[in-house]
């Protein structure tokens, strides 16, 4: 019984993904047929056109997300140490939660003015900074819990044994922190990869990441291309999750 239920549940969870895949290969899906009327690989071939807009958006999105995740993770990891050890730790942490709870699109509406002032609106640079403003505090939140008594005493131990701070960092802290760095990188990548509202506002629709493409296809009611681009959005993080699932989720529970 339980076995059957397990497979049923798995099938239910996979249903949306199969539907998207079907639609991305479909040519017409008229009511009331359950399967598409005809099949085509035409939508997918658009991805591989050299000057194709879809392929470009995919590369742009990957580039933006890798950059945002790298900068947010490295700086979030390093600065969270100061925050964790700071006497104003609680105050800083509350500030770090603010961008996360403010709804990126509302936040973007409030700060867009300054992006225009600095000539960043409508440029990739503006989108990078905008997304960093969302992702970096999140990295701090993920990482700050890492700096606990154990790490601290290790640092002190190295110091008592005459090691330099650099050595303590390279030989002790970094190896201990691989897990958290990976989790943090992945989460920040996702924040950037999934971001729509802020990107469309600050990029004024010019910086066309994959989420903007999906929205455009939905907007013109082209469900086949919308399904295809949805798949492209889903695939990279899904592959990462498949290979690295436990690691990636281990410490999302930030408390």
């Amino acid at each position, binding site marked *: 019984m339980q076995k059957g239920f397990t497979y049923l*549940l798995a099938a239910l*969870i996979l249903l949306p993904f199969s539907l998207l895949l079907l639609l991305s290969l479909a040519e017409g899906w008229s009511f009331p047929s359950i399967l598409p009327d005809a099949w085509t690989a035409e939508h997918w071939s658009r991805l591989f056109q050299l000057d194709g807009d879809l392929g470009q958006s995919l590369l742009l999105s990957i580039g933006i997300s890798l950059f945002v995740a790298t900068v947010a993770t490295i700086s979030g990891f390093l600065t969270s140490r100061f925050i964790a050890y700071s006497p104003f*730790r*609680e105050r800083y942490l*509350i500030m770090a939660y*603010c961008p996360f709870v*403010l709804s990126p699109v*509302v936040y973007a509406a409030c700060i867009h003015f300054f992006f225009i002032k600095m000539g960043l609106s409508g440029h990739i640079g503006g989108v990078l900074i905008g997304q960093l403003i969302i992702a970096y505090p999140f990295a701090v939140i993920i990482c700050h819990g890492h700096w606990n008594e154990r790490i601290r005493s290790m640092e002190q131990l190295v110091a008592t044994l005459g090691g330099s701070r650099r050595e303590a960092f390279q030989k002790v802290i970094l190896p201990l922190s691989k897990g958290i760095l990976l989790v943090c990188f992945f989460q920040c990548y996702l924040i950037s990869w999934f971001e729509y509202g802020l990107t469309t506002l600050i990029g004024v629709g010019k910086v066309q990441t994959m989420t903007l493409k999906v929205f455009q296809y939905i907007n013109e009611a082209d469900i086949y291309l919308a399904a295809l681009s949805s798949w492209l959005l889903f695939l990279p993080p*899904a592959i990462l999750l498949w290979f690295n699932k436990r690691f990636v989720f281990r410490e999302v529970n930030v*408390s």
Partner: protein
Amino acid sequence: MYKALGIRWFLLLTVLPLAAGLIYALLYSLGLAGILGNGFTLAYWQSVFAEGVVWRSLGYSAYIATASMSLACLLALGLVIKLRTAFQKGILSYVIYFPLAIPAMVAAFISFQLLGKAGLFSRLTYALGLTESLQSFPDLVNDFWGIGIIFSHSLMAFPFLLLLFLGTYEGERLGELKQIAKTLGAGEGYISRKIVAPILLKQNFAAILLYFIFVLGSYEIPLLLGREAPQMISVLTIRKLQRYDLLDKPEAYIIALIYCVLVLTAMVISLRRSKILQKN
């Protein structure tokens, strides 16, 4: 020296934009900034308070967030209690991670293709003879109760919560606790309801709360699956910001400010009360 630099970087990326954004919004709402700013006025604030749209929108957002999170929590709790082992190995232990890779926009699109009148479920009920036409399929998207929105958010939240609960279950050694309760004569149902569920929820209170706030401020899902009125708070803000009438722009900032103040206050109070900010 590094420390000062690190803290500065933090302030530059979090406090500065936040403060700048809120101050700008405030000035704009008072007629002190912007293209239509003609000097100090409270007129915009008065009109927002008189209109009442913002309160309906806040209420509606709270309803959607509560319903989505309750549904997702119930589902996740039920599965953790009944099917815990199935998620630890076998096919479900892989598949359950997939929904985490769905962005909100795609979740909304999927929901539309599943729940819409021409969607997959409507085709299935038609094939089974449960509905005689597309029109007789019930309204599940752009509907009064926000079913489409709640469905999408639950779809996104439940795997996340489930994995969270699984972690807590092991971390808190709930299995052992259950055994003890059993030897003391407690029934299975009693243990689930009075011991396991409360511990899981309490331990993850902060994460649930943050997810709640995330749903409250969500944008893409209600944009695609919502109604024209009432609208959820982010959709309302952006609509006011980008309407034909430029006079609506100060109102957009007022709504943003009201939302920020409410959410930040609620967050600070709950975070202070939960142990999340305490030193470990």
